[in-house]
């Protein structure tokens, strides 16, 4: 009597669950196919073309037509612009995140936060376009260089990672229990002492995650920096020099790489490297979060 008079609902339930599960499985399939494809294509440089991984990672000459596949200029370029962005945009973003969580009166926060969310939504080409029409001429006039180069790209990227860092930093600060705030203030600490000695240390793993995800955002950015970086496939020796990054080189060369050519294989190796960096950042985030709890 209790069992089985809801057969129809039951069948729907299991059909629905099967659908939901297959939609979820699509994620696993996607990442596995993506990783598989990129690993397959990205290792052909070493397995089919017999280039050494050492050359790919450390050689400064990238000229696949003549068989030289050193990606060091791009790796250094990516690391540099990302480092620049996080060195400038990181502290700034953290500060603004702390501000929103701890200092901003609700009305000020309500007015300012939509602005930050607009920043997130601005397409990267628009940042690139602004860099191209505003920043590059400015730097050219101020320094006498071409204006294209690491400095321009670094500044553009700093701005682009701000919203990510700000919102994650704010979230990290907000989960710190109020009792800590009250406890510190009750001991006679000033607001700044409370923030710097109690709240920031308490939120440090969340703040670290904010910075790490800022790095992930920066290292994957392609067009905005491609437009202002100057795209010179050489190892840069100064802030004002043109350079190239992993992402921007892919943008430049991909369309013309003949299927199965060394060039295409090298570009896929670079894409694979980017993916591995991005995924190791995720693992790092997991590690930081796990250690904190």
């Amino acid at each position, binding site marked *: 009597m209790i069992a089985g008079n809801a057969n129809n609902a039951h069948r729907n339930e299991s059909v629905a669950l099967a659908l939901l599960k297959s939609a979820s499985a699509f994620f696993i399939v996607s990442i596995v196919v993506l990783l598989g494809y990129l690993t397959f294509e990205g290792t052909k440089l070493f397995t089919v073309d017999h280039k050494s991984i050492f050359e790919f990672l450390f050689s400064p000459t990238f000229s696949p037509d003549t068989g030289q596949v050193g990606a060091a200029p791009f790796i250094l370029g990516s690391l540099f612009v990302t480092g620049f962005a996080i060195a400038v945009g990181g502290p700034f973003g953290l500060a603004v995140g702390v501000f929103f969580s701890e200092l901003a009166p609700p009305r000020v926060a309500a007015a300012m936060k939509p602005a930050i969310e607009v920043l997130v939504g601005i397409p990267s080409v628009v940042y690139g376009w602004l860099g191209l029409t505003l920043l590059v001429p400015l730097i050219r006039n101020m320094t006498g260089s*071409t204006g294209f180069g690491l400095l321009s790209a670094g500044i553009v990227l700093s701005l682009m990672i701000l919203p990510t860092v700000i919102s994650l930093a704010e979230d990290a600060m907000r989960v710190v229990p109020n009792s800590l705030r009250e406890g510190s203030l009750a001991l006679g600490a000033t607001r700044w002492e409370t923030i710097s000695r109690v709240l920031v240390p308490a939120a440090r793993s969340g703040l670290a995650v904010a910075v790490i995800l800022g790095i992930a955002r920066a290292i994957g950015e392609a067009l905005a920096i491609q437009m202002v970086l100057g795209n*010179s496939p050489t190892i840069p020796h100064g802030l004002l020099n043109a350079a190239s990054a992993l992402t921007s080189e892919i943008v430049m060369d991909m369309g013309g790489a003949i299927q199965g050519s060394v060039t295409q294989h090298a570009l896929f190796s670079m894409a694979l490297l980017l993916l591995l960096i991005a995924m190791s950042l995720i693992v790092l985030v997991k590690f930081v979060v796990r250690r904190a709890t």
Partner: protein
Amino acid sequence: MSRFRAIAALAAGALVLAPQVAYADTTITAAGSTALLPLVKSAAELYQNAHSDIHITVTGGGSNVGIAQVAARAVDLGDSDVIARNQPELVDHKVCVAGFSVLTHPGVGVKNLGKKQLQDIFAGKVTNWKQLGGADTKIVIINRPRTSGTRGVFVHTIMGGQALNESGLTEDATGTVIAAVKSTPGAISYAVFAGTKTSKDGHSSTLEGIAELSIDGVAPTEENVTTGKYPIWSYEHIYTHGPPNKDVSRFIAFIQSNSKLVHQLGYILTRDMKVTETDR
């Protein structure tokens, strides 16, 4: 539940059917050389005005892009400044000849250079215009990426086996090269006549904001190209994957036969050439 099932069926149907939906009319796609781009694009606009049932989309990307994409059947036409080697499936249609200028920022103070001097500049051995008798300005080399046919022609005709120094800027296309040379003091680069010259009443002149160099005293003019005195030129090719179909072949013929357009844009008709490529 039936509603739910209907939605699921629709979604599945959309997924299966979407790729099957075909064009209503004839479509021709072209990609490749940015040196040939002005001609193909202009021709496409004219051709479509006359044939409203034909859709032509044209993109650049560089000669190697054109060859790669036509080989992969991603486009119908692959435009190239250089010959596609070892790809027997590609059929070559020579459409015209293009000359290429060496162009500089107007402030460099140099009007003529020898081939050897050009090699020294582009190999990075000479780094200041002062060393060549010009202004005291750092030389900024602006290259095209490796996929560029213009770059291939330049290296082939001028560099004599030396590698390009790539520490300067790299620009995607003819248009961006010209924009970058205009705005960068000390800049030097190479680009197709169609990009460096403007034509008015049948007379062509150098585009405002840049300077064109003579090479060993020979000015970059159409006449000097046809007689073979000026070194940097090449045949412009349109490749198809196998023999073209009727529509594609008509469009190619339209480009080849439109001498007015070819002249107006700074290209040279193949029949006007007094030398052949092997003479170089």
